């Protein structure tokens, strides 16, 4: 690494403040950092730690009414904090540029993409509108958008999230900046798209010889693309280390904490539950179709879904958005009425019960939702929120309910004083614990968790996964853990099922599936997933099993294998014959006749060997 080179950007003791009640609150309070030419630097920190504020402040930009209260940002021999707004404007986009999360919000909704890119380019050059348009097409080609001549005329709302993010990269890089600040560029994108996009961004920046500051909460992205890692905590940079050193031997307490789970787990997989355990849930059949408005078509959200879960077992259900995993979860707790189903819970078929008869099972099956803020009634106290299920489902006195509420608060590791609070002002991690506490209050035997960690910052996520592992062991609750995050599945679950287009394509123990996936889709998914392992960086090992093309429409499903149009191994048989889920000799199941015939698990690239 070119450690001796003069820094490209050198920020010293930067302070950013927002006026609040007479004084300034300081999300960034004395942060110092350097970025060298052509370097990829990761910036990690909790939600609300001021990462984004810091990133913008490096370009002299603060969202009103905040301002930079002190410190310096040196770039190319000039202190940006001393420049006038006009000088800064010329600077931004030409020398330092940015891409941000929520690309569709960051693109102007009223103006065509091409014109926006052209405007960005022409802001820093003397180009004519025609040249600007040519540049827009060139940039769109560069970031890997198909058919750029047509796409320049698109509006932001006509693009998918990944495509909009690419358009934004095109805009940011149009004037060839020397530093690109990427603020959570892939949040909200699917795993495979995320990897493609980061690959593309990394490659584009290598080609233009720029540096990157990658702001992210995702340890996987940091480990796979960055050369150096900065950790932001309490408004200061508390750790600055090369990526391998950071993951192997974090120095600061905060870094140790976010990597705690990673270190504790090592190479081990969670222990399997005993074979003698009963199946608490047997889904023999589950099909869910949604009618399409104003047409006779239906969306096949879930078709031919089968899964057994043992008492006390944690099963991960993974897949990309649109795979139907959330719909499955909702059908299991009967928030949705499945089109056709045989769902046995403790021997009873609950799939076809009406809502009244379902009530007596409600206390035994509970659900935890994705968005912790949205899942609690903001007007109720925590105590009222917790005991609501008891009021509905249990026959208890006030005192008994109160006692039970205190018990579950303790169980999820929250102080009892919180019971009197309203949810307002509580963090995501705390609220998600409250949600789990509410789900546990009736002592259920089975818990469905729908992406419970997806909005949590690394620390809170680690703590929640530890908590879930503990609850599973101590209370013997079976979990269905619905997620797109393979890393958490690897930490928490005994078994995993991979879904694609409403079907399970592969199912087995986490160890089996993660070390030797057999279905081409699982292979691609694991390949694209960014595990927090700096020893097997994606940028050092170019991958080959990426899937081409788009997911087929769930309204008009293919006749043969659903993956055939995208699978590198597909042939005529795949395209014409529907695939069945078959059990292999080692207990793993797979929906692919080729994999079934091979029996020998295909060797995978080392990216899945996690550490």
């Amino acid at each position, binding site marked *: 690494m070119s450690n001796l080179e003069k820094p490209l950007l050198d920020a010293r003791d930067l302070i950013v403040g927002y006026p609040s*009640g007479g004084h300034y609150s300081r999300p960034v309070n004395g942060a110092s950092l350097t970025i060298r030419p052509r370097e990829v630097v990761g910036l990690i920190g909790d939600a609300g730690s001021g990462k984004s504020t810091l990133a913008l402040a490096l370009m002299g930009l603060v969202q009103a009414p905040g301002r930079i209260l002190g410190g310096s940002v040196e770039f190319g021999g000039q202190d940006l904090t001393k420049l006038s707004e006009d000088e800064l404007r010329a600077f931004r986009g030409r020398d330092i540029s940015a891409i941000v999360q929520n690309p569709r919000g960051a693109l102007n909704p009223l103006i065509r993409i091409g014109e926006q890119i052209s405007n960005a380019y022409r802001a820093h050059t003397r180009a004519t509108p025609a040249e600007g348009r040519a540049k827009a097409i060139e940039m769109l080609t560069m970031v890997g958008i198909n058919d750029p001549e047509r796409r320049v005329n698109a509006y932001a709302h006509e693009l998918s999230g990944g495509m909009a993010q690419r358009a934004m990269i095109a805009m940011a890089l149009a004037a060839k900046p020397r530093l690109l600040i990427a603020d959570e560029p892939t949040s909200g994108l699917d795993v495979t798209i995320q990897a493609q996009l980061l690959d593309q961004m990394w490659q584009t920046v290598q080609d233009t010889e720029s540096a990157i500051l990658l702001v992210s909460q995702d340890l996987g992205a940091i480990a796979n693309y960055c050369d150096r890692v900065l950790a932001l905590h309490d408004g200061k940079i508390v750790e600055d280390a090369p990526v391998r050193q950071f993951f192997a031997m974090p120095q600061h307490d905060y870094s140790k904490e976010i990597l705690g789970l990673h270190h504790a787990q090592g190479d081990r997989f969670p222990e399997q539950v005993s074979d003698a355990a009963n199946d608490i849930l047997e889904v023999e059949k589950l099909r869910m179709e949604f009618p399409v408005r104003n047409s006779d078509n239906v969306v096949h959200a879930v078709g031919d879904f089968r899964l057994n879960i043992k008492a006390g077992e944690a099963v991960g259900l993974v897949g990309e958005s649109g795979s139907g995993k959330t719909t499955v979860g909702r059908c299991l*707790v009967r*928030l949705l009425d499945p089109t056709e189903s045989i769902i046995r819970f403790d021997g009873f078929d609950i799939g076809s019960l009406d*809502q009244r008869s*379902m*009530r007596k099972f*409600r*206390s035994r099956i*509970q*659900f935890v*939702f*994705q*968005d912790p803020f*949205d*899942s*609690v*009634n*903001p*007007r109720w106290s925590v105590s009222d*929120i917790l005991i*609501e*299920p008891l009021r*509905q*489902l249990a026959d208890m006195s006030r005192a008994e309910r109160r006692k039970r509420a205190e018990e579950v608060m303790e169980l999820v*590791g929250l*102080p009892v*004083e*919180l019971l009197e*609070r*309203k949810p*307002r*002002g*509580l*963090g995501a*991690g*705390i609220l998600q614990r409250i*949600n789990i506490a*509410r789900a546990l209050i*009736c002592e259920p035997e089975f818990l469905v968790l729908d992406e419970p960690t997806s909005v949590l910052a690394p*620390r*809170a996520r680690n*703590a929640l996964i*530890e908590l879930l592992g503990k609850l599973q062991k101590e209370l013997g609750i079976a979990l269905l853990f619905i997620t797109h995050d393979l890393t958490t599945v690897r930490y928490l679950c005994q078994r995993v099922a991979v879904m694609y287009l409403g079907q399970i394509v592969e199912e087995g123990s986490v160890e089996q599936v993660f070390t030797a996936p057999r279905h081409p889709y699982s292979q691609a998914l694991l390949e694209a997933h960014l595990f927090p392992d700096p020893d097997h960086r994606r940028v050092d090992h170019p991958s080959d099993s990426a899937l081409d093309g788009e997911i087929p429409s769930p309204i008009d499903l293919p006749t043969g294998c659903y993956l055939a149009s995208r699978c590198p191994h597909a042939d005529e048989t795949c395209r014409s014959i529907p695939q069945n889920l078959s059990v292999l000799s080692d207990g793993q199941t797979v929906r692919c006749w080729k994999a079934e015939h091979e029996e020998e698990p295909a060797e995978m690239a080392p990216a899945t060997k996690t550490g």
Partner: protein
Amino acid sequence: MNEFADTTFAAPKRRFNWLFAIGVTIVAGVTLLALIGPYIGPYDPTLTTPRVSVPPPSLSEIPGLLFGSFSNTLEHPPHWMGTDSSGYDVFSRVIAAPRTDLTIALAANFVSLGIGAVLGLLAGYFRNWGTELLMRVSDVLQSFPVFISAMVLVALAGRSMGNIVLALALVYTPIYIRLTRAEVLQKKVAGYVEAARAMGTPEIAIAFRHVLPNSMTPALIQSSVTIGFAILLTSGLSFVGAGVRPPTPEWGLSISTGANQIILGEWWPSVFPGIAISITVFGFAVLGNALEERYE
């Protein structure tokens, strides 16, 4: 496990807001006048005096008159805002009018808010042909031209306070239905609604216990605006002769009484009640806005 070590468990503080304070003061003042206004004026607001078209005292006369009225040495109490062409004491009528204006405005608002919130909840939470029909009816009601409809209703039904309340409630209800319904549509897909469902709470209980309380904010904020506009509308109706009957003390009626004389320079019978309306409605608008900023 100190992920929330830095979380304060104290509820967040609020900042003092000048506008809010002004709004509250005005609204409280008008409410007080609505309670005691008719009794504290120097004259009976519904009876004429023999003195016609007396102008208000000039500034220099005020100290003397104040002294006189406290020491009871005047032959009759002063006409602080003059008298109109019929001999009514303008001041007594201006401070007695909130009883009429505010009662009408509050009643019309809360009748339409109550009906609108419940219907809006039903229309948003339970989508079926019945609630669709309800929305179409509400659409038709909303396409009524507000002022003229109110005028027609009151004039044909009879110029009483009750009829004015009903007419205003009829034109305001669709607004509340829409507001509440829009909010319900957003709130009914909230996680806490599904969570309640997952624990077996009956739908009607979810609708009224979870969804309704969380969907009321826009309607309550709108209330402040609606009350203000109801006052404007009430006085406007009186002004064109389709409101309350004289001699009920009502600001619009007072303005209307003075309107014919204003070309002749007799400004006081109209100007003072107008100032009262202006301040009152402004107060409600300010209050509504402060509430909107606080709760949205």
